[in-house]
């Protein structure tokens, strides 16, 4: 693979640049959103108002560009781009670090106007309490813009007010990266309608997703382990439903795009969870009280809690399909790679354990009173596994 030459670096200024108070705040907010500034101070700045100047100085704009360019690339490199990994390119596996696998022009991040507009808005207004309109049309966003908005959303979502304000905006509401990382935070009620994930498997978005694979695995494993501490039935149901809908849509789009390698994090998350046999108590052990009066609602909540293990059913279908691809068939290389991933994650054992955990919730299955029956509350602990948080 040929590498394009790196673009020329702009000349460095003689000394520190002079910026106004507004610009100073804007730069600190930007640094907070890309993870280079303390979260508590960053949150305070986002929640504060500052009078907005008519325009930004050239020096401040340069600093914004510089921060975006360096911080976003650094984030991607740290999260997984540095790894000597194997991903599909035009149906064939290609090994190497991201800069070895992907030509420079395909991985150059281009940020557009909505990013700067958002930063100005977030600096000038109280994001959680403002009537000043700001939003960005999702169709006009570049892959780098979407990536930045995801970073911004991820940085601010710990604050419920900010989360509530931002998730209503199209720039975040329809951002596939937000949905694939924290679907539970993207919804208000029970209705979970994920966006179209198809664009995520094309061009630069797919490259970003490749870089984020280890990060996604880590996040999902952590999220699954924390489910055992959720006490509220309604919250569990909403989060689980959103996760199920998002992952189903994601896997469907990955399969349609023939990029099953980009769903590796789903397989690895399950493999990390099912290193031993688990019962549903691992997920539902923290639920308080006996739950909703209707058995249907209790069962629905418990099923929703196991949204991630339930995805193994789809991955098993992929594995069966991969096994049937012959040497002269189209997609042979891709299927070989999937089988290698499946093998590395002990897919068959993981799928069997995931299936067993999901089955334990189902009524009318197996011997009477085995496992955790759906008829009981979240407190039941039939045979607590070693790694059960409950």
């Amino acid at each position, binding site marked *: 693979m040929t590498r394009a030459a790196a673009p020329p670096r702009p000349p460095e200024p003689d000394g520190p640049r002079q910026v106004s108070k507004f610009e100073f705040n804007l730069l600190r907010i930007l640094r907070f959103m890309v993870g280079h500034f303390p979260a508590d101070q960053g949150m305070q700045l986002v929640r504060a108002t500052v009078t907005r100047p008519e325009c930004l100085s050239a020096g401040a704009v340069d600093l914004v560009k510089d921060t975006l360019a360096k911080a976003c690339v650094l984030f991607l490199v740290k999260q997984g781009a540095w790894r000597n990994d194997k991903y599909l390119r035009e149906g064939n596996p290609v090994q190497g670090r991201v800069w070895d696998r992907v030509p420079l022009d395909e991985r150059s991040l281009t940020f557009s106007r909505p990013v700067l507009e958002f930063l100005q808005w977030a600096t000038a207004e109280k994001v959680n309490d403002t009537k000043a309109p700001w939003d960005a049309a999702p169709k006009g966003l570049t892959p780098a813009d979407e990536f930045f908005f995801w970073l911004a959303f991820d940085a601010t979502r710990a604050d419920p007010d900010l989360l509530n304000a931002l998730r209503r905006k199209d720039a975040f509401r329809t951002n596939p990266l937000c949905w694939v990382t924290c679907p539970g935070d993207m919804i208000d009620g029970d209705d979970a309608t994920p966006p179209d994930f198809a664009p995520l498997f094309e061009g630069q978005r797919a490259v970003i997703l490749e870089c984020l694979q280890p990060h996604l695995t880590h996040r999902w494993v952590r999220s699954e382990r924390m489910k055992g501490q959720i006490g509220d039935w309604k919250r569990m149901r909403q989060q689980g439903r959103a996760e199920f809908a998002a992952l189903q849509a994601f896997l469907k789009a990955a399969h349609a795009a023939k990029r099953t390698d980009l769903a590796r994090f789903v397989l690895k998350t399950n493999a990390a969870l099912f290193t031993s046999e688990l019962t549903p108590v691992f997920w539902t052990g923290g639920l308080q009280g006996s739950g909703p009066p*209707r*058995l249907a609602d209790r069962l629905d909540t418990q099923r929703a809690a196991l949204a991630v293990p339930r995805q193994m059913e789809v991955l098993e279908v992929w594995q069966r399909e991969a096994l049937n691809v012959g040497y002269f068939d189209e997609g042979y290389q891709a299927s070989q790679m999937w089988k290698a991933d499946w093998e590395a994650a002990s897919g068959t054992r993981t799928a069997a354990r995931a299936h067993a955990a999901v089955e334990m919730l189902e009524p*009318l299955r197996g*011997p009477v009173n085995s496992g955790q029956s759906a008829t009981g509350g979240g407190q039941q602990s039939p045979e607590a596994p070693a790694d059960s948080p409950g």
Partner: protein
Amino acid sequence: MSRAYRITVKESDTRHLKAGDEICTQLEILEILPPEDMATLLKEELKKRGFEEQGDGTMLRKDGELTVKVDPCSGEVTVKAETEETVSQEAKREATGFNDVGPSEKSLRDRVKDQLKTDLDKKFEQEQSRLQGKATEQLEKHLSDLQPEISEVVNQVTRDALKQKAQQMGTVKEISEDAESGSLTIKVEV
């Protein structure tokens, strides 16, 4: 001179309350024969156990207030508990008024009536939750009774399917079944 008076208002209401609960799950039918043959076997087995075929091809059995519905094609089982009751509730409130100060008798009466309406709604809500609890309890009890039967149905269908499959493979020489262990041995001459 100010004179006090007491108003007593009684309200009663009768409502028809309904409550229901249901679970839906999937039978684990092994694909020993083609799906349509497995569905036929399941249908036959369910018929023996009192299920009736409906217009849409599903099998239905009513056990009192409970309904068990099985879709032989997809293996989907729905168990539904429904209960209804006609409930009468009565509420009574008293209020004191004065003929010279405060609200007039009419407005006092209206206010008490509004309060009584709220009281009645609360009482009906309590009745509704009681009825809901009853339906859920019935469903839970029925599920534990139904589970062994459903397991038997699945086992029987699997056994029948295996026998048919064996016949398709060759001449069946011997079939031995052990009811205790649930094992089935079929010797086939191919």
